[in-house]
């Protein structure tokens, strides 16, 4: 299976419609997908901060907003230094579309129902992105510095996934 198909399959777990049209991802496309994935989680965290009244969910959302913004800042300075222009592609468009649907669903909820749905979404979303990172984005990256940043991102997002799984036990 090509890397792209693996990525599409990984994203399809929760995004369903996410697939790309090219046979191999380029570094500018990988950078765009990674940045988009980070920005989606920052936006989800902002929504949670506006809606939740649960202190633990708030702490988690603050961490997500800060960590993902920090990684994206590093990614931006890296692509600038490498003179790489992130390139929009079908996979990042699919992620954005699915995120918009998730946001619409979450906006309708409040209280404990929102907290549960937000945390469940965070678990599923991080799992999807981690699978994409390990099966497609990291193996597909050509530039060593981009690959290293994606590897740090995978370690971070894996820790976030575990964190969210523990949090889910307390927001039942």
């Amino acid at each position, binding site marked *: 299976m090509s890397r792209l198909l693996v990525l599409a399959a990984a994203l399809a777990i929760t995004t369903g419609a996410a697939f790309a049209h090219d046979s191999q991802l380029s570094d500018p496309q990988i950078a765009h997908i990674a940045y988009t994935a980070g920005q989606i989680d920052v936006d989800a965290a902002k929504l949670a901060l506006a809606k939740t009244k649960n202190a633990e969910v708030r702490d988690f959302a603050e*961490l997500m907003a*800060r*960590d993902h913004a*920090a*990684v994206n*800042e*590093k990614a931006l300075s890296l692509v600038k230094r490498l003179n790489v222009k992130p390139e929009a592609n079908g996979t990042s468009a699919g992620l954005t579309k699915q995120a918009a649907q998730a946001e619409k669903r979450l906006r309708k909820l409040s209280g404990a129902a929102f907290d549960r749905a937000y945390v469940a979404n965070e678990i599923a979303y991080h799992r999807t992105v981690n699978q994409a990172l390990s099966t497609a984005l990291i193996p597909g990256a050509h530039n060593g510095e981009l690959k290293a*940043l994606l*590897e*740090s*991102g995978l*370690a*971070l997002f*894996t*820790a976030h996934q*575990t*964190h969210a799984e*523990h949090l889910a036990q307390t927001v039942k």
Partner: protein
Amino acid sequence: MAPLPSRRSALLTIGGTIIALVRPARAEPRSHAVLIDKMKFGPMPSEVRVGDSISWINRDPVRHTATARDKSFDVDLPASTEGRCTVTRAGAVDIICRFHPGMTAKLAVLP
């Protein structure tokens, strides 16, 4: 034969040397380093004594802390920075990152 005061002085010198060998002066405080990379504390240094310092080197793109659970130190580590603390308490110290609950380590501090 040497006069008595000299002999006494020599004996005192020898005695002092023996005492110095048996009980060496307190070693100078040492500096140690711990690397933080990919959401993990690297290996903890051995032979850390009270008064020594530890440099915490954060290689991750996100902010961490090196925090002693017993509150004896709490070092804020913004992304890609280093921070230093002095070790003040002997014993086994549990170390955590206040932001990332999966990051833990154990530091053994000698008196």
